[in-house]
């Protein structure tokens, strides 16, 4: 038995298998991005690659074009979900991304199919923007058009959705389980609702006394500068409150707060740790859905 040849065959088979469920997404000028037939009729791609909501088409591996509509966008995860009316493209085999470990061998697949190969280099929040969901940092190259395509394990199962981020310098994948949660929300609501508390916040340095009690290295939090009337926040937060954490997750800037408010949390209770008049309080709030046209 030849291990190298076996590995080579296994990698090629994984690309072939994942490639069957991959489409080219035409949502921006020039280089199309990649999409994955995630559930019957629902295609997942990277949100930043869709410049408009209309006149979108996808091309199947066999070259057929089809019109698609946007069902929902989740800019926090950089995921967009499209609906295709009928499709001969098989649904992807989505694996359990919780089983992925640092050092695991993975492939990125782009429409074509095209492929690149590497390992998971880190798992965790790559930036404060994604406080609620860990992301995979990849030691592999995401070529132009790879965003929205599947990150595939050595067996060919989809364990994530690749994105270079709007900056094009990042090499990240959103874990499949996090994508599943967004897709579940879409199946239930028919769209991606946006969770909100109804506060405007600004970053501030933490006062010395509080800093000593907090975790090491944490010296910032956010201060509430506006509470929208009738919003979830109005039930417990006041202008001037300093939000230290939400359900134990540190909030060091307004993006942390946005990242913590995932769509699937709408209707759930969260506990905010708040500094008010020199004392730390626990405030219980119910995450709401942001009304249309509200900011």
């Amino acid at each position, binding site marked *: 038995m030849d291990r*190298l040849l076996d590995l080579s065959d296994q990698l090629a088979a994984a690309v072939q298998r994942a490639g069957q469920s991959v489409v080219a997404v035409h949502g921006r000028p020039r280089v199309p991005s990649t999409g994955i037939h995630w559930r019957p009729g629902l295609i997942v791609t990277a949100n930043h690659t869709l410049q408009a909501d209309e006149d979108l088409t996808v091309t199947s591996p066999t070259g057929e074009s089809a019109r698609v509509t946007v069902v929902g966008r989740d800019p926090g995860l950089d995921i967009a979900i499209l609906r295709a009316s009928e499709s001969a493209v098989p649904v992807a085999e989505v694996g359990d991304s919780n089983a992925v470990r640092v050092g695991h061998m993975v492939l990125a697949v782009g429409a074509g199919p095209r*492929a690149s190969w590497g390992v998971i280099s880190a798992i965790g929040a790559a930036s404060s923007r994604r406080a609620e969901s860990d992301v995979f940092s990849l030691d592999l190259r995401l070529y132009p058009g790879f965003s929205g395509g599947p990150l595939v394990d050595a067996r060919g199962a989809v364990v994530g959705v690749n994105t270079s981020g709007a900056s094009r310098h990042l090499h990240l994948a959103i874990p499949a389980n996090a994508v599943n949660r967004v897709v579940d929300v879409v199946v239930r609501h028919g769209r991606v609702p946006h969770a909100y508390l109804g506060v405007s916040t600004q970053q501030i340095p933490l006062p010395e006394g509080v800093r000593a009690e907090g975790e090491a290295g944490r010296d910032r939090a956010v201060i509430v500068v506006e509470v929208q009337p009738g919003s979830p926040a109005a039930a417990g937060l006041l202008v001037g409150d300093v939000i230290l954490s939400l359900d134990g997750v540190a909030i060091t800037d307004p993006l942390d707060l946005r990242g913590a408010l995932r769509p699937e949390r709408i209707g759930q209770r969260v506990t905010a740790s708040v500094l008010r008049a020199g004392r730390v309080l626990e405030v219980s709030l119910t995450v709401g859905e942001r009304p249309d046209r509200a900011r």
Partner: protein
Amino acid sequence: MDLAALADRLRRITVEITHDGHGVGAGVVWAPELVVTNAHVIHGPRVLVRGADRHPREGLVVSADRAADLALVRVRGLDLLPAARGTDGGVAVGALIVALGHPLGVPGAVTRGIVHAVGAITPGGRAWIQADLKLAPGNSGGPLADAGGRVVGVNAMIVGGLALAIPVSEVRLFARSTGVPVP
């Protein structure tokens, strides 16, 4: 075979090509005393060729096709066995591949990757083996091989981080077109 054995095997069919101190390229032993390389590695009728033993030998350029970016060089006394060759059909997207060359002057360096895609970069362009693999100047003309050590392409250039290799079928056509009897 492991990667080290594969690299050893490729070192035995890869040569280094230089001109009086001018740059460095690689070449593949295609037939006894015959080496193929990129035409852009060649800058005159004569080159200096070194095998793994580092012994310098004179190479005479038999043919150079600038459009195909391929050249055939005869090296008298080169005691290296010709490379085992693969076929274009054996190159699947995702398959493991290995390049050997002298990137930035490092002799006999191995890099590994996978086949990224096969075909033209732009519509109507020439067909390449596009590899997700690290190449650098000094890899030009060297072998791209499959996991079994069979040469499937000749490394030619880097575009947007992608390694581009001339498929072995095209190299075979070129070698035959030179009129030199080669298998």
